[in-house]
């Protein structure tokens, strides 16, 4: 009995010390996590914070030599924001982006959904190789393709038209969409569709009514990707659009809000921020889906 109590009391001092050490280590790791989180957020968001401040600065404040750029030395004003919305092409750029985006989403889904399903499910001898080939298409650089597209767009009579982008953007979105959807279709158990076919659905009906609804998370990821590409893409938009009525945001803002050597800083920064924030929100809502889609396509493709 006494031996036992000795056995348990003897190591209490080291255990106590160990516990305190573990606790200290825990606190230190917590502090590190928060410090890294704050530093990372500041580094990433710094230019956007400055954009937000500048948007409401008066010219006399912004251009005063040596003035503190991070606070309002004069009263803030919304005159530049008003100017952006009423006297520049900003809203036109936004509408063009939405229009191009919607069309690109539709074309991408129409082409990629059946193709991905076919590669994932149906008997194709060269299916695996074809899946990889479609992915490789994504890696052919626009920096080379624009040379041919320049002639192609001219021959189609689409110079300086936003419809040129509707024709070209699926070259980027379709390969990615096929890759993403392939993973999603493969993750659906075959039995579900087979059951539907036993119940009298044709294979195509099983695809439309069963597989497509089950791949909905993947479809949402494709929609967001294709849509934001229309806001992101710069090369084709700047090469093939010259009049301000046709431009999308990523080329309209840098080219139309700088007149000659005069930078309309407040309008420029406000416009960039107004585009950046909603896209970031969309991505954050769907981040997990993107990550799982990316890994699924990679692991099971």
């Amino acid at each position, binding site marked *: 009995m006494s031996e036992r109590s000795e056995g348990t009391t003897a190591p209490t001092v080291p255990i106590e010390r160990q516990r305190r050490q573990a606790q200290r280590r825990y606190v230190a790791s917590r502090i590190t996590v928060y410090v890294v989180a704050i530093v990372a957020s500041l580094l990433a968001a710094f230019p*956007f914070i400055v954009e937000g401040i500048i948007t409401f600065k008066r010219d006399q404040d912004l251009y005063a030599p040596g003035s503190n750029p991070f606070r309002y030395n004069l009263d803030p004003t919304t005159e530049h924001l008003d100017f952006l919305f009423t006297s520049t092409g900003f809203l036109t750029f936004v509408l063009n982006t939405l229009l191009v985006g919607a069309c690109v989403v539709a074309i991408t889904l129409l082409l990629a959904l059946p193709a991905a399903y076919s590669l994932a499910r149906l008997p194709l001898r060269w299916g695996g190789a074809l899946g990889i080939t479609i992915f490789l298409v994504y890696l052919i650089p626009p920096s080379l393709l624009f040379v041919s597209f320049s002639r192609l767009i001219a021959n189609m009579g689409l110079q300086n038209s936003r419809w040129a982008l509707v024709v070209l953007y699926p070259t980027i979105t379709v390969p990615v969409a096929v890759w993403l959807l392939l993973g999603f279709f493969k993750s659906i158990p075959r039995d579900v569709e087979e059951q539907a076919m036993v119940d009298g659905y044709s294979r195509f009906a099983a695809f439309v009514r069963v597989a497509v609804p089950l791949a909905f998370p993947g479809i949402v990821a494709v929609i967001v990707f294709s849509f934001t590409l229309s806001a992101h893409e710069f090369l084709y938009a700047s*090469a093939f659009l010259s009049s301000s009525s046709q431009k999308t945001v990523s080329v309209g803002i840098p080219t139309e809000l700088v007149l000659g050597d005069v930078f309309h800083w407040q309008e420029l920064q406000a416009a960039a921020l107004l585009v950046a924030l909603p*896209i970031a929100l969309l991505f954050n809502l769907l981040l997990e889906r993107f990550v799982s889609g990316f890994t699924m396509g990679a692991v099971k493709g």
Partner: protein
Amino acid sequence: MARLADREGVLARLMLLPAIVYILALVAVPFVVAIAYSFSDVTAGDPSYDWVGLENYRSNWEDPVFGRALWNTFLFTGVTMLLTVVLANILATLLTADFHGKWVVRFLVLLPWTTPAALGAIAWLFMLDSLLSPIDWILWQVGLLEDGRHMVWLGKSGLAKASVIGVQVWRLVPLAAVIIMAGQTAIPDDIKDAAAVDGAGFWRRLWEVTIPLTLPVIAVAVLFGAIITFTDMSLVRVLTNGGPVNQTHVLASWAYVKGIDGGNLAQGAAVAVFLLPLLLAATIAILRAVRRWEVT
């Protein structure tokens, strides 16, 4: 049964056909045409095809701007990826940890990647402005720069190159971190727990468990980042437009200047063709890394 399989085979081809036709017509054919252009004298104004052999390659090779663009492309990609891989691992480790306010932090650190590259460059255009730069102002306050003097970030060759690399890193770290995060969350919990129970501290767990197990994913992230950096022209175009005096051009931006600004499609193509060998190498490397990832 055989008939059903036959019909499925037909259906499979029909469902695949539209995507294949589109990709053949708008990627495969233009790809071949672009390479063919590089051996011709095609311009935007005169589209008739005349074979000139290697003439465009020869004149590019003798052009000092092309040489610089080629070197910059490798320099920017190499340095960008080196910095990105370190910072992205830190960020990915942070994002897999649990802490308060994670949603806000995630939103903020992803901003550089989710923002269109050209608009991110617009934000930095102000940050690095020759007169208004807030970075200069901070340097004044901490005494690293004499009051009233300016760094002129985008006006000097070395600083402009460093700026382009810095902004590219800023933009790519979130993407690389998200990919690496996918790999880290895929490590089975029992391995992490076992290492922790065995008394391995954070650094030992990082070096001996996390990094070795996520190496293939890190490779994928780096290669994707490298391909993006290698082929991107928007950042250089908006931030420096190749300046000062063509010091910061990369192959993609120089091809654009030749092909679109200058209208010389053939020479633009001959510049961009130089992207292909390295892209091919990166692609093979990606496929290998993905296959290894699959095995683990």
